[in-house]
């Protein structure tokens, strides 16, 4: 049953290598962006309609850490459930799903001069970008989007608030 293994094993390796090579070739830009931290959250319909002259700037993990250390406010665009399960330590919950309700309160409490970093679940989730656009529209001047979001923060072993996951 396994007599041909000597022939089958190299063929298997070639097969796997070919598949990987094919995938890497097609998606090389995505991989380069992911590993250099240049990935930005995708603007969705809201962002495209906004017609803002300036869009929120992307921020990488290290920048986000520095911004937090220098008094920036981190804003979580995910659902309240996900926020409760775990969030970037010190982040304010501002779910995109109920933004009409929560944004006025936020605007009242947070000065327009503060630096704001938005995030959501990483991997192309659009909410952090959309929230960034809304905050710019609301008059905030320095708004950044942390594309890696909660997964990248958590995986880097940085402080997390909220319940156990």
């Amino acid at each position, binding site marked *: *049953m396994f007599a*041909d293994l000597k022939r*089958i*094993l190299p*063929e*298997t390796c*070639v*097969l*796997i290598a*070919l*598949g*990987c090579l*094919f*995938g*890497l070739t*097609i*998606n090389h830009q*995505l*991989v380069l962006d*992911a*590993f250099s931290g240049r990935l930005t959250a995708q603007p969705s319909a809201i962002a495209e309609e906004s017609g803002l002259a300036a869009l929120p700037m992307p921020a990488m993990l290290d920048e986000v850490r520095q911004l937090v250390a220098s008094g920036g406010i981190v804003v979580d665009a995910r659902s309240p459930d996900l926020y409760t399960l775990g969030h970037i330590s010190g982040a304010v919950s501002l779910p995109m799903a109920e933004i009409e309700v929560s944004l006025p309160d936020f605007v009242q409490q947070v000065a327009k001069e503060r630096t704001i970093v938005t995030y959501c*679940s*990483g*991997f*192309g*989730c659009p909410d952090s970008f959309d929230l960034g656009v809304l905050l710019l529209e609301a008059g905030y001047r320095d708004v950044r989007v942390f594309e*890696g979001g909660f*997964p*990248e923060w*958590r*995986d*880097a072993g940085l402080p997390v608030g909220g319940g156990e*996951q």
Partner: protein
Amino acid sequence: MKRLEVWLYHLCRLILAAVFIYAGSVKMNDVVAFAGHVAAYQLLPYSSNYLVAVTLPYVEFLVGMLLLLNSRVRPALLTIGGMTLVFMLALVLVLLRDLNIDCGCFDPGGGQGVSAWGALLRDVGLMVLVVLCWWLRTRTSDGESAER
């Protein structure tokens, strides 16, 4: 008897081909979303999830095509067996850590699919098909001069 085995072999082969061509192509369509599913397992650092997401669907698709074409069947089966073992290990870790996630086995866009237990059971089924297919392939190709 021999004829039944040949028939059964082709059935196993085509089922596996269909499963993996489907699994590969739906994930190729939305690599970024699939990276998110891989990240939900919390096994890899952030950027590495993208590496898995850009390679795995293409390997799945390739082995599916080889099975469909009835070519390099045993290397393809060995690859599927290896991948399925890794999937099962990942699912066991999910169960041990009590994570409530979508397995990301198929369509990355389609919300909550089956539970980790369901996915694990499905992987056991796939493993049975792989072993059966391998065994039948070896039996039916005995005596044939050149197996391709």
